[in-house]
């Protein structure tokens, strides 16, 4: 079963958020496994403002395209160019090298604890 990282919080749309400042955002291993091999990611640009609960990009796998939702509101500080260049990182290391962007968060959407997310989505803590 897919791993749920215990030290993170999660949106219902499968993004994870860490506790650093600015916050770092990625997608969960549960989501990456369900998508299949990721081949393309479309991310917001540095300086863009994103709004919690709204779409801010796309994750495309061999079989489908999924919207990427902002789990927090705020300004994009940094994007992970390595993940854009090598989208397989989202499958290989979704909580590490496959992170997506960082945000100067002004507010948060509804976030789940790792336990709540794992229970809802059937992941392994």
């Amino acid at each position: 079963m897919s791993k749920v990282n215990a030290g993170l919080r999660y949106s219902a749309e499968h993004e994870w958020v860490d506790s650093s400042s600015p916050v770092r955002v990625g997608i969960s291993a549960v989501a990456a496994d369900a998508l299949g091999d990721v081949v393309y990611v479309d991310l917001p640009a540095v300086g863009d403002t994103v709004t919690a609960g709204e779409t801010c990009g796309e994750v495309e796998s061999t079989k489908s395209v999924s919207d990427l939702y902002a789990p927090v509101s705020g300004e994009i500080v940094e994007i992970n160019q390595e993940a854009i260049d090598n989208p397989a990182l989202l499958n290989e290391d979704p909580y590490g090298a496959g992170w997506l962007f960082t945000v100067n968060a002004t507010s948060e959407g509804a976030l789940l604890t790792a336990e709540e997310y794992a229970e809802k989505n059937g992941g392994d803590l």
Partner: protein
Amino acid sequence: MTEKYTALYEAHKQLGASFTDFGGWQMPLKYSSELAEHKAVRTAAGLFDLSHMGEVEVSGPDAGAFLDYALAGKLSVVKVGRAKYSLITNNDGGIIDDLISYRLADDSYLVVPNAGNADTVAAELASRAEGFDVAVNNVSAEASLVAVQGPAAEAILLDLVPAHQAEAVTGMKYYAADTVGIRAGERTLDLLVARTGYTGEDGFEIYVPNDDAADLWSALLAAGEGRGLIPAGLACRDSLRLEAGMPLYGNELTLDTDPYAAGLGPVVALSKEGNFVGRSALEARKAAGPARRLVGLKGSGRRSARSHYPVLSSDGETVLGEVTSGAPSPTLGFPIALAYVDAAFTKPGTELNVDLRGKPESFTVVELPFYKRSKQ
């Protein structure tokens, strides 16, 4: 719908497969990574469970004449030991299914419909059999189907075939079939082996009774070890068939499409004698010519067109059609798609747009297939 499981379900679970529903069947979607499985089939070999496909036996003195009436092709001229791709249409010429028929003997055929259509096709054949000296027998529930596909397929299969029958495999032509002995554990099983597939590669499809399927599966996995064979799921089967430009029932082929729009005109034998189901409608459709035709599209960017996305004119102003299947091509490295497009815009080289969720992206009409294996 009750979930259906193939005789290999436990084997897939042990291999760590993730499953998907396909035509009511719980089928392996992938075991590891669909890209790795795709690549294995192109460069070495993949092992597929296709037991969800249907099997309908058609036998009796009128078997050939009956299939000439029931299907769009001329099956009576197929030689014993050979197979033919055909269509079953309704009276309006709409496509009920695409299927492969094997002639096993002068008076015996095996018709193989798609998973979700197996019962419909069996019932249609039975209802069309009136007046023919023929028996239609749906044996889908008893038969499993295992495919080994890829350039290493022949060498892997030969490992399991007694030496005196090796020639039956090496000499087997594409779209031919024969009964061959295959070693599975302590036993040698006499099984129908066909040189057919749905991946664009060389390969074999092997029909096996459910009770023997797990032994055959294990034997093939073991024979393929060291030759690059890995189990392969439906995810890569879809990307492989798309690269090979092959239609998928439910995407490219439906009751609302006809063979001419789908580029399958040559499959319809209007020249055959006598009436067949759909003939007058198909003659009219051929004469009128389809308003839209199925084409291949090649994307210029990294984003893929997907099923049901609108196809637009190059200025983005006019809707010209709809995508039926689309994905990033693992082998070619660019997005590919099949789409029905206004017949005036189907010439290879035509520049079009596809509406990728609100953003137009440039695509070019290209010849099918997208990928063709190099012959040895």
